[in-house]
């Protein structure tokens, strides 16, 4: 079961955008997100919009056809070379590589990829092989993001992950061999039962793997997940924010010592070119079209999101109707709030003429060169800083 979609205004059946939203298209960057809602099995902590084979009578081919139809619909609405493509899920690499290639080709054929475009796919370590990685690389994928989560078997078990600790590291090596330069490892910290040493060893392995990017997230217990139910029943302890804070500090210490630099509160990269340009697009208020069931899009202050279920999604497109479930046309003040909310989380921070730093408690912002950026303590209290700035 996935988290509920926001309420919103209806989306016109042809998916049309108000013309002001299309002004300056491309000046804010333009990307494509493709949501692949399939997983081999459902992880207990996950509330994403994803389905296992047994939950779905909807083939990979049907799904790809539907996304191709949405690309066709979008092609009539906007046109601009695509700078970043991101396949997320779900587990995109559960799709046969040629199907992923069909989707990427359609994007390329419709809008063209800008020179040096970043093309990322997420993958689970157990869902890739040297051959599949090689094929992806050959089809134009430039970046791979692997869900390592932890090096501790006990933690992987609580998270219901299917891979063994060594598999993610091996997958990094295979990806490098296949020609990928940009490789991310996702880590989850603060899982109940995870020791400080567990997390240290996860970091150590991730750093030593040769990945040039690490995303580290504290475990969030989402309502309605199996993990939430197990915590409610007392089978598993509630994750502690203080422990999560300790882990975050450990991540920063280890990663920065190894030459990684934070550029967003949960993201570290070895050098500037290793940063995820697609995610930066989100955080800088850029434009992107999200394809696939439940995918979110943003173009020029209009945010919309597709219907969640793959079958409904397919039916809408088969009858020539936009799969958009709802949208919101942001007011100027909502756009400003989002700007502060997103930009403040970045290492680049915000210029002083956009915010009133006196509203923020001492020690959370580093003010220099006309900009304010989060201090290390400020990164751990980023939401509080943002609330102070916006209240």
């Amino acid at each position, binding site marked *: 079961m996935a*988290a509920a979609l*926001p309420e*919103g205004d209806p989306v016109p059946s042809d998916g049309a955008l108000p013309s002001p939203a299309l002004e300056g298209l491309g000046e804010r960057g333009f990307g494509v*997100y493709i949501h692949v809602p399939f997983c081999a099995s459902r992880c207990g902590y996950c509330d994403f919009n994803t389905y296992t084979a047994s939950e779905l009578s909807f083939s990979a081919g049907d799904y790809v056809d539907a996304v191709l139809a949405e690309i066709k619909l979008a092609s009539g609405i906007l046109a601009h070379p695509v700078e970043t493509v991101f396949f997320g899920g779900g587990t995109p690499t559960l799709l046969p590589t040629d199907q992923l290639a069909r989707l990427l080709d359609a994007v390329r054929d419709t809008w063209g990829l800008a020179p040096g475009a970043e093309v990322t796919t997420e993958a689970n370590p157990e869902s890739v092989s040297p051959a599949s990685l090689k094929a992806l690389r050959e089809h134009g994928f430039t970046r791979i993001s692997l869900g390592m989560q932890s090096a501790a078997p006990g933690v992987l078990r609580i998270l219901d992950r299917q891979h063994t600790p060594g598999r993610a590291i091996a997958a990094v090596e295979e990806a490098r061999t296949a020609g990928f330069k940009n490789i991310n490892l996702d880590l989850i910290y603060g899982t109940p039962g995870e020791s400080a040493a567990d997390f240290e060893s996860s970091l150590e392995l991730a750093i030593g793997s040769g990945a040039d990017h690490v995303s*580290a*997230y*504290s475990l*969030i217990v989402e309502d309605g997940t199996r993990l939430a139910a197990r915590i409610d029943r007392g089978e598993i302890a509630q994750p502690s*924010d*203080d422990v*999560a*804070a300790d882990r*975050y500090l450990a991540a920063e210490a280890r990663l920065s010592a190894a030459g990684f630099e934070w550029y967003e*509160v*949960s993201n570290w990269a070895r050098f500037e070119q290793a940063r995820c340009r697609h*995610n930066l697009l*989100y*955080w800088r208020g850029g434009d*992107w079209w*999200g394809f696939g069931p*439940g*995918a*979110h*899009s*943003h173009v020029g202050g209009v*945010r919309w*999101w597709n219907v969640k279920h793959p079958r409904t999604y397919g039916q809408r497109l088969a009858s020539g109707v936009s799969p958009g479930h709802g949208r*919101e046309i942001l007011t100027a003040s*909502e756009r400003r*709030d*989002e700007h502060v*909310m*997103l930009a403040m*989380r970045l290492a680049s921070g915000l210029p002083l003429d956009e915010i009133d730093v006196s509203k923020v*408690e001492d020690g*959370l912002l580093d003010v220099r060169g006309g900009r304010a950026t989060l201090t290390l303590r400020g*990164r*751990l*209290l*980023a*939401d*509080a800083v*943002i*609330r102070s700035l*916006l*209240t």
Partner: protein
Amino acid sequence: MIQPGATDPAAIRNFCIIAHIDHGKSTLADRMLQLTEVVDPRLMRAQYLDRMDIERERGITIKSQAVRMPWKVREGERAGSQAVLNMIDTPGHVDFTYEVSRSLAACEGAVLLVDAAQGIEAQTLANLYLALENNLTIIPVLNKIDLPAAQPDKYAEELAHLIGCEPEDCHRVSGKTGEGVPHLLDEIVRKFPPPVGEADAPARAMIFDSVYDIYRGVVTYVRVIDGRIEARDRIKMMSTGAVHELLELGVISPEPVKSKAIGVGEVGYLITGVKDVRQSRVGDTVTINSRPAKQALGGYKDPKPMVYSGLYPLDGSEYPDLREALDKLKLNDAALVYEPESSAALGFGFRCGFLGLLHLEIIRERLEREFNLDLISTAPNVVYRVLMEDGEEVVVTNPSEYPTGKVGEVYEPTVRATVLTPNDFVGAVMELCQGRRGSLRGMDYLSADRVELRYSMPLGEIIFDFFDQLKSRTKGYASLDYEPSGEQAAELVKVDILLQGEPVDAFSAIVHKDKAYQYGTTIAAKLRELIPRQQFEVPIQAAIGSRVIARETIRAIRKDVLAKCYGGDITRKRKLLEKQKEGKKRMKMVGRVEVPQEAFIAALSTSESAGDKGKK
């Protein structure tokens, strides 16, 4: 029926029933209504008079405050003679001692009604003493003799011991079956003295209750002592000199019956059209304007609030509604006083004075239930009299207004407390009372296994969860009554609670110096649990003046960030942020510390209850 205004005082018996709640007063009253045939058998229903009270609450009918019942004596030497019985109700709680005393003063006799399965309770005992002080003749009655658990012999001993009669003098009745009730009515006529007064003297009638009715205005219940009041008279309130036109005069039987007049010894109601019970006060003397009495009847007292508490609307915008609600309640409650106050922590509200804890609870409940208000009330406190070294006197009704200069003596109100307990719990009760600075004034065995303990105690100690403690230490068996007994000097201090060095006015308390530490640690620990962690460490201190006596720390929050914020999270996150911004507006700021309103409510809610509740 003998007509009101034309009844020979020798035929009149004015009496009340002193009983504890659940001891069967209402059921006994039902039997009396039936036997005296004042209620049509087809209209009879259980707890007839109580039902009228409920209706009265809704403002429909007049309270059955004093029921006039004709009775033809059935047995004995007076058999066949016609009497008029006026059964006068008494308010049922410890907070209303004065009102009880006025009701008793309207009677010549009291039926002491005790459950034959439970024995007498402290509050009943206190009212019995009050009746004896008023020179009332007592008829002891054991009720519920039909119950298998009844022990009439045992409790007859107890009652005989208490009032100095023989166990055989205790009547045995069953309100449920009616057994013994006709005999009791005969006995009321035989034993209770008739009222005595001067029929030709200027009229003097004592107000023993005064009730606001939304349709009729104030309905005043009086007992005529001397002279007579006629329907066309203009009456005068002797305490204020105010003169009112009489719109209606009558008796309750048990529905209101208009009458031409009421004379010596009679009980009736007056309606003048006034809208506020303060203009028709319990204990005041009513006379006739055209021929006024020279001297009022004794015993009139202004109601004096004993317990204060700040009442604040949860939603600050409801302040005008709270004011309006209090103004309305005041019409029917001469004892309720209030004035606006503001608290840095709680905003705008009213400091309200009450007769006691139950009175406070009743008012609070009515404000919430009838006026739909959500309220925060501060911990109740008593009134302190502070003598400064320079001789100035300051009366403190709000601890945060305790004077800061050189304090000489501090006086606190005291009460005479009576506790009845099975003798197994005497030790536990004594320990509790001593812990509350009580001093033992006497101890009596009511029977082989029931003990009456009399203490002098500060009222301030009673209003702080004493009753709950008493009940829990005696497995619910002990009962409590108390009445004001003056004041005493005591070593009292004001304890302030500070958040990050800022005093929080709502938590200031005046306590005995030996208890200051306990109060400080308790509140500080409570607040540590209730206030969410802030971006910085928040010390919570309890202090007497500048001296810190207890300290807790709310550790700074270390993590307040959602790790993930990708394309699909943005709308959800912005909406959450908007919600949090709204939430932040409802936070009360104490210095830099954000305190959720719920924390104030939870910290201020103590488990204290208000003594024996309900009516007898």
